């Protein structure tokens, strides 16, 4: 009897945790993936279902997502929280935790055990040849070409303030962090920013310049989550406290980047080595299935946005056709939308719609509106005026005129607009990965972050094929739908 009750309790609690899905976020760079994957696998080994929201586009996207309850946990660095989020550089770990609790009802775990501070790196040869050991030595070497990651250029604890502190006169060019080492190796730049745990430091034979004026705050890695999260999860996460030191992290980074292990494998080996799990629980998807699944998601994003845009833009186009006075300003406004860079538009979506499919579809929808709207309007306007007169003369009201005469004759032009929108969407949807919406962009973003060409192609080739297929598909649709004498 007691035993039966006990079993039931276990069953129920298992059922309870089973039903709970924990959403783990990750910043889109190598270390971010590894740490998030460690958290995910650890939670899975404890019976949780984990939704992986990787490839989130940078600190603010992750933090906004956490704040807006679009993810539950993600790994972050104390220095980043202090400078970027709390806008008070150099806060102590304790103070950061308190401020997060007070201002955002968020909380951080104890540090994982490594400090991944920002660092400036140059080639060892150069360091020796010019005797540059510390950041302050750079002042007299104004000829050096600085190539800094976009994020570093923007940050509070980044380039601007660093240059001020050390009085550096250099001009810096921005580039993608994943490409910086290659640029350095090929002498296209001579200095870049890096993280002190980067696997490349050893590989490319670089040296970290000493931060002799202690400009960079500490970057202790740890998990951030909402205060109210299940205490059982906090307990599980606390197993990672102090487990990972800098060398460990460098090695893990290096084995993904240079030993071509996947970050899933690296996370698994770490957890097994530490005795935290016995073996990887979840099955591995085959590459083909993975591609198909992501392509499916890609099409879903593209076509649901396209469908919404069609349902919205065509009636709006008709309405504008009837009210030519305002059509100019509406077209101008939707043209303006088109000029917002995709990444920025996606970022704007986060506070409004969180992360995931919804904001991505909304953003894609906004991009698809203009081509369809513009073509609907021009299509209707370019119908032969004689036929419009005949339609009037027969006694059609304006709805009948649209339905029987103007719209049918505008279809080829409208269709061309839809086709343009679809092709734009297939391309832009690759960026949806940045806000956790999935799709083929996952491969591309991960591949860029890991500097893994094979992974980039795994996303880029199907995306290009999709774009071509869409182009042909619409061509075919037009052939089939629009009789020859109207084309």
């Amino acid at each position, binding site marked *: 009897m007691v035993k039966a009750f006990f079993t039931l309790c276990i069953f129920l609690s298992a059922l309870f945790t089973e039903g709970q899905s924990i959403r783990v976020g990750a910043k889109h760079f190598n270390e971010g993936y590894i740490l998030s994957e460690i958290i995910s696998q650890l939670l899975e080994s404890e019976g949780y279902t984990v939704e992986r929201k990787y490839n989130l586009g940078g600190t603010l996207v992750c933090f906004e997502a956490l704040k807006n309850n679009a993810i539950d946990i993600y790994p972050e660095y104390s220095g980043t929280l202090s400078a970027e989020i709390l806008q008070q550089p150099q806060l102590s770990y304790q103070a950061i935790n308190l401020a997060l609790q007070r201002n955002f009802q968020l909380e951080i775990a104890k540090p994982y055990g490594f400090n991944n501070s920002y660092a400036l790196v140059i080639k060892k040869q150069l360091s020796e040849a010019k005797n540059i050991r510390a950041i302050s030595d750079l002042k007299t070497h104004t000829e050096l070409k600085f190539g800094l990651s976009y994020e570093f250029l923007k940050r509070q604890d980044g380039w601007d303030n660093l240059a001020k502190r050390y009085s550096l006169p250099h001009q810096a060019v921005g580039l993608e962090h994943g490409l910086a080492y290659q640029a350095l190796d090929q002498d296209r730049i001579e200095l870049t920013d890096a993280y002190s745990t980067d696997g490349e430091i050893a590989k490319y034979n670089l040296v970290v310049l000493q931060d002799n004026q202690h400009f960079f705050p500490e970057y202790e890695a740890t998990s951030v989550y909402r205060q109210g999260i299940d205490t059982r999860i906090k307990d599980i996460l606390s197993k990672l406290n102090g487990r990972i030191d800098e060398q460990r992290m460098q090695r893990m980074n290096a084995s993904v980047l240079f030993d071509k292990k996947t970050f899933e494998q690296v996370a698994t080996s770490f957890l097994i080595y530490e005795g935290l799990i016995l073996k990887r629980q979840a099955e591995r998807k085959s590459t083909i299935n993975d591609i198909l699944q992501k392509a499916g998601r890609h099409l879903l994003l593209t076509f649901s946005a396209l469908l919404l845009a069609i349902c919205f833009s065509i009636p709006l186009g008709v309405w504008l056709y009837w009210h030519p006075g305002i059509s100019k300003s509406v077209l101008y406004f939707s043209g303006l939308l088109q000029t917002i860079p995709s990444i920025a538009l996606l970022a704007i979506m986060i506070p409004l719609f969180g992360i995931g499919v919804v904001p991505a579809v909304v953003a894609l929808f906004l991009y698809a509106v203009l081509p369809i709207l513009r073509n609907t309007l021009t299509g209707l306007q370019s119908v032969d005026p*004689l036929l419009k007169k005949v339609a009037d*003369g027969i*006694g059609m*009201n304006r709805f009948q005129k649209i339905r*029987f005469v103007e719209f049918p*004759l505008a279809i080829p032009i409208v269709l061309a607009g839809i086709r343009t929108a679809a092709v734009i969407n297939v391309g832009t949807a690759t960026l949806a990965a940045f806000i956790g919406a999935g799709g083929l962009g996952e491969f591309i973003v991960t591949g860029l972050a890991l500097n893994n060409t094979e992974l980039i192609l795994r996303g880029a080739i199907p995306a290009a094929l999709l774009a071509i297929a869409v182009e042909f598909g619409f061509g075919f649709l037009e052939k089939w739908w629009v009789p020859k*004498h*109207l084309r």
Partner: protein
Amino acid sequence: MKIAQLLNVSHSYSGQPAIKNISLGFEEKKITTIIGRSGSGKSTLLQFINGLIKPSAGSISVFGKGLNYKEISATRLRMGYMVQGTGLFPHFTIAENISIAARISSYPLDVNQRVRELMTLVGLPDSFQRKYPFELSGGEQQRVGICRALFLDPAILLMDEALGSLDPITRQEIQSEILKLQRLEPRTILLVTHDMREAKILSDYILVIDKGEVQQYDTKEEVLQRPANAVVEKLIEASVW
């Protein structure tokens, strides 16, 4: 009682006067030919009647009531209109073009039968029904246009150079069809032309206009025998040889 009436009607296209203060009425169930040189204002005058053009000044009444431009659709359904040029809808078949009015108003009778009836009337073979306008010659297209205008059996038929691009023989055939039809079920027909021979054959009344002004408006016989001025004379002379 005139079926359509113009009172002090003037019209300008962006400042250029096209119709200058015309007042007249059209006789019910008669064929009136509006004749004049190119640019004299014939098409403009015709389109006053079905409200496609609203005159800059003056008033129009049709069927005994002033035209209500806000609810003009219902009035237009009672008028057949053949635009200058064929104006067939390229995306509709011949049968669909002819019966388009059935789609915008409730048509109580058998649509297909009406289409066949009209096509026979103007001498188009049944096999044309499923063709598209681009597959027909210009003259055939004009005959389709006549069918379309007649579909709802309108009380007023407005024809703007409807028989323009027909060969002389077909033109004669259609002309006698119109006359035959007019004997069987007379209706008001306003027919724009610049060909006095056509006016001679078809008209009960002739309205001659030039530079937007009425030169003469009277019965055919009156106009032909006693032309009011040199303009009318010239038009008649031009058709003799």
